[in-house]
């Protein structure tokens, strides 16, 4: 393979990953950015999607659940439905309570899901994970650049679809209610909005997007294992949303690309700088770097790169001074 094709292949690989992250971050943005729901277990919902899609689409395997060998599209749909159902269960248990309880409950869900993935060999192959997850069009196109480019096109199409749908949703009356709940729950309730129902809908929809993102990941890499879904993933996704700008769907996508870029570049730089025997420690520094990036962003530029658009009612007589609005 020539150098140029190699670079193009890596670029497609990089952008496809960024796009997969963007799908998940769009889901998180619906939950946190627009509705103010705190999900600290994003990795768990991503894992559900990845495992469900893998189980639905892989060929038969004697010792494990699954082997349904369904089409990949069915796997993606199943992933979104399964993660949405998980969101429904968690939401019913925790959404009526204070926001920090949701954070703790979702954190627990992610830990529990990871444990199941690690220990229940008959479901997900235990620590060895699931292999031979079908990659769409790989056999007809060939591995490397053609597959990466084709997958990138599919991911971009899904991101565009999700973006368009979410933009319509959050600008609809439904989306306005979500923001009203986020800003002032009591006021929204006093206007007759069923706060719990709206929250639950936003939470389930966001969880489904996270599951879809997990499925996209599984079919791109072709192999998943429990250590792909550690809390560090949740943290990366949150950093993407905070950096890009919570409450802005374009910000969510931009944040995914930027933070994934910083992550990939810092990983490369640290690998080049650290001696071979200190590579594992270098990976730890990479996490510290992203942690500092998140903290600095929260302190210095809380609105993110692209902040939320200030919405002013068109019925307002004169434009009020734009006030600093923040999810909360």
């Amino acid at each position: 393979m020539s150098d140029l094709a190699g670079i193009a292949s890596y670029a497609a690989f990089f952008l496809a990953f960024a796009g997969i992250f963007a799908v998940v971050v769009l889901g998180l943005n619906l939950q946190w950015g627009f509705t103010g729901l705190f999900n600290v277990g994003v990795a768990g919902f991503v894992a559900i999607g990845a495992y469900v899609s893998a189980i639905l689409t892989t060929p038969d395997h004697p010792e494990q659940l699954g082997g349904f060998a369904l089409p990949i599209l069915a796997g993606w749909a199943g992933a979104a439905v399964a993660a949405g159902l998980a969101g429904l269960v968690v939401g019913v248990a925790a959404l009526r309570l204070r926001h920090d309880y949701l954070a703790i409950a979702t954190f627990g869900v992610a830990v529990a899901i990871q444990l199941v993935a690690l220990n229940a060999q008959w479901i997900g192959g235990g620590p060895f994970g699931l292999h031979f997850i079908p990659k769409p069009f790989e056999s007809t196109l060939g591995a490397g650049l053609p597959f990466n480019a084709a997958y990138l096109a599919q991911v971009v199409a899904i991101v565009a679809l999700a973006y368009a749908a979410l933009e319509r949703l959050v600008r609809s009356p439904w989306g306005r209610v979500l923001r009203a709940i986020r800003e002032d729950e009591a006021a929204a309730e006093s206007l007759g909005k069923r706060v719990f129902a709206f929250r639950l809908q936003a939470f389930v929809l966001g969880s489904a997007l996270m599951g879809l993102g997990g499925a996209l990941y599984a079919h791109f890499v072709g192999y998943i294992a429990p250590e792909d879904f550690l809390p560090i993933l949740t943290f990366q996704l949150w950093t993407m949303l905070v950096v890009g700008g919570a409450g802005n769907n374009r910000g969510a996508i931009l944040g995914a690309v930027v933070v994934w870029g910083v992550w990939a570049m810092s990983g490369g730089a640290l690998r080049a700088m650290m001696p071979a025997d200190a590579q594992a420690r270098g990976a730890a520094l990479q996490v510290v770097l992203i942690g500092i990036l998140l903290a600095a962003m929260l302190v210095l530029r809380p609105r993110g790169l692209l902040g939320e658009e200030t919405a002013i009612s068109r019925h307002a007589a004169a434009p009020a001074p734009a006030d600093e609005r923040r999810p909360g």
Partner: protein
Amino acid sequence: MLQLLVDGLVVGSTVALGAIGLTLTYSLLRFANFGHGELLTIGAYAALAVVGALAGFAAPPIGPFSFGWPLLAALPVAAAATALVALAVDAALFARLRARGAAIVLIIASFGAALALRNLLLFSFGPLPEYYSREIQIAIALVPRSVLGGMRVTPDQAFVLGLALACMAALHLFLSRTVLGKAMRATAMNPDLARVAGIDTAAVIRATWILGATLASVAGVFAGLTGQVRTTLGFELLLPMFAAAILGGVGSVLGAAIGGLVVGLAESLLTPVLGAEYRAASAFLAIIAILLVRPQGLFGKAAR
């Protein structure tokens, strides 16, 4: 069967000390601190560093315990180091977010700070687990093996139980008898009213961090003493600590102490049922059960 009770109480007293610190910061700073587990880990490693630095001195194990005086000397140093880290993170990160009134963002900030701190420790100390002492201990049989499988306690376990109870008693006296303790309780109840009454709330917040970090460092040393010192030590206890704080009712110190013991016992007793590999999930099941049945906890007031 009886043995599970002892093991549960030992784990429970570690969880309880951690949960008390968690519930204190929760009720005074009004956010769920996902970085509290890392305070335990920092305490454990600070003590390890002190024990390592004192390795040159002849320090035979005290009595039946596995450790000598260096570990006792390490406890206050670890507490001071952990408190310094907590205060530094608060000043650099949490205080700024608090000042902006973005309290809810504090949760994700604490999550980020936790990962950064844990990986900083991983970078400094490496991934291999360490021990305070490699002495072998002889467990004392309290109940003979013929009765329900018997009950044995190692001296270190007895030390953990005793010191945990002493810490809780001291904390109770501090909160109920001293001016600072009363100021803390007043600020937890109503920060605005406390400020109007002339309480320096910034000093109260600093005291809260110092207190929470001190208890966390003791808990971290306990966890290291009865298990291994490793970078995920505190993180693995985070879910049990949250479960204990919620079970006790957020803000209730007594509740967190009892909640910690209950969670430790429940984890230990559920292990034969769920299997050791799902031990960590039992705390999560406890949280979901509490949230569904009694979200205000055993000693808490109804949710706001």
